[in-house]
């Protein structure tokens, strides 16, 4: 994954002719990753491990989609969690009330999310960076308030209770924990693969150019507003899938899924893992969840421990873990080249 062109931040040659075969390499990589994940339940008999991977899938999709905005386009959204919440609530409500099949409910939820993202994005993406952050945050809190106050539909602060039915579809029975696990892994791998293709497409390079210099991009005829809105909606869809996995996992939906802290966690996951590599957010997700789980198990003073770790990343490493690893690898490679 070293062809991610970190150097392009300087603005030089954002279009790199990309050999076609790297798409096949991505697919190969995805298939291997899926095979490894799918083999886990047969190698280890641990429900906790499966639960962990399911949570990683939900948050990983969410965080990686946020990186499409933060890392690739330079849109710092503080309200991305609203689409995670919309996914969880939309899917949960459709399953509870409309009595539809799981794939249909997922498609409908995606349609609802897309609609909401188009409306919210159309208002937000015009704004400059700090105001963009705050208006997305305001929309997030607005949706959270609607969820809290619309008790007859959403159950208010109690959340969607009573569980979510999981009718069998295409021979897949999601009441079975292993099948739910494999289903989540499949969604994760497919989602990551699609996002990777978006990031590596000409559109993805347009986004990088907008991040580096929006004025120049508009001079060469790119409709900046439309490109930003498109990526805003695309990212919302993947975040919504993350929300759906979460909703299936906890068999419900809670107002916390739409609270701003989810967006905050997404941002911190991105910072921990690093925003300059595609898989950085995924690494960040695993890191934050491990950190969360161990810190809450070992100590009551979870906040102090997590705070110190974050400080170490922000002031010590000064970048995410993957950025650090990539830089380290480059330095090592260059050194190896110099000494034949």
């Amino acid at each position: 994954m070293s062809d991610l062109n970190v150097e392009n931040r300087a603005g030089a040659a954002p279009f790199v002719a990309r050999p076609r075969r790297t798409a096949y390499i991505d697919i190969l990589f995805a298939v291997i990753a899926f095979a490894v994940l799918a083999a886990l339940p047969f190698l280890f008999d641990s429900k906790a491990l499966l639960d962990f991977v399911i949570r990683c899938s939900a948050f990983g999709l969410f965080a990686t989609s946020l990186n499409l905005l933060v890392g690739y386009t330079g849109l710092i959204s503080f309200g991305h969690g609203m689409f995670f919440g919309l996914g969880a609530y939309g899917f949960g409500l459709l399953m509870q009330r409309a009595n539809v099949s799981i794939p249909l409910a997922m498609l409908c939820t995606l349609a609802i999310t897309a609609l909401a993202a188009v409306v919210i994005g159309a208002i937000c993406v015009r704004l400059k960076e700090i105001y963009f952050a705050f208006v997305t945050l305001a929309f997030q809190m607005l949706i959270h308030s609607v969820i809290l106050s619309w008790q007859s539909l959403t159950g208010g602060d109690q959340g969607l209770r009573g569980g979510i039915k999981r009718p069998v579809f295409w021979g897949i029975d999601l009441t079975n924990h292993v099948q739910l696990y494999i289903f989540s892994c499949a969604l994760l791998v497919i989602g990551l693969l699609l996002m990777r293709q978006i990031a590596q497409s000409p559109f993805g390079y347009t986004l990088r150019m907008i991040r580096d210099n929006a004025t120049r991009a508009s001079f060469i005829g790119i409709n900046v507003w439309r490109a930003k809105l498109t990526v805003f909606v695309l990212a919302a869809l993947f975040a919504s899938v993350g929300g759906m996995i979460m909703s299936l996992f906890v068999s419900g939906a809670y107002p916390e899924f739409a609270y701003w802290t989810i967006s905050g966690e997404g941002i911190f996951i991105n910072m921990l893992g690093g925003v300059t590599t595609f898989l950085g957010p995924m690494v960040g997700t695993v890191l934050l969840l491990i950190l969360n789980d161990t810190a809450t198990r070992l100590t009551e003073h979870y906040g102090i421990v997590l705070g110190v770790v974050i400080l170490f990343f922000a002031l010590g490493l000064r970048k995410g873990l993957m950025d650090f690893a990539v830089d380290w690898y480059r330095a090592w490679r260059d050194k190896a080249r110099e000494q034949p």
Partner: protein
Amino acid sequence: MDLDALIGCLGSSACVVTQTTSGLIIGMLLFLVAVGLTLIFGVLKIVNFSHGAFYMFGAYFALTGYQLTGSFIVALLFGAIGAAIIGLIFERVFISRVYGRDVLMQLLVCYAFVLIFDDSVKLIWGAEFKSMGMPAAFQVPPWFIAGGVVPPFYILLISVALVVAALLGIGLARSRLGKVIRAAAHNPDMVSALGINTAMIYGSVFALGCALAGLAGALAAPVRSMTPGMGFSVLIESFIVTVIGGMGSILGALIGALLIGLIRSFGSLGFPLFTDGLMYLFMVIVLVARPTGLFGKDVA
């Protein structure tokens, strides 16, 4: 939704007075927090995400000061000075390392300290709800203005905030230090080249902002209950205030805070469950109409 209650209230002067005063105290407390936030942003260009923690420190220090001495004045001083000292150390040791770095890094450092500060308060004062109780001097019958009930403590709170607003406004506009601060906000390199210690200016502005948040916490201590993490909702609300008023504008912070206070107090009658929602809706409307806020200059 309970629009009848809202309309009924607007028809009676007693209810209007009561709701307006409660709106004013919400607004004034928010103003004290938000004005610090906006000052720090204006001069240091830092969005202090941990500002709510200083409000919390102010309240807890005031509680300790009051328990030690029994004097509310001492409690106020404890709150303001304690928050200022912690703020100064925080700025010198940590925040000064992230000046000019990207916004995400700054937010990350502040977020880390939100977690650390909240947990430290939990360690020192305990996790349970605390309350200070109304100081003896203010345990007097409330005043009645046009039929509405107004506790004297509310008058004190509102006047203290107004005095602070006036002092800040005049001080920044007229005094030498105020002029230096405004110059540093505009062009720190030039100010530094003129032989003025900008690090000291930055430190003192940050400490001043924290002192104001601490004062707000101390003033709120008799009327609100205290809990670790209490700073957070205040922080979000004061962000809304600064964004509505315009980042970096003191007048904007005052107007924004009063508007939010009134929206909260009257909104809680008409839309008891959607009071927060009203606030966010208002922010969205203002920002869509004027992306830099009501009094903001085109900075960001």
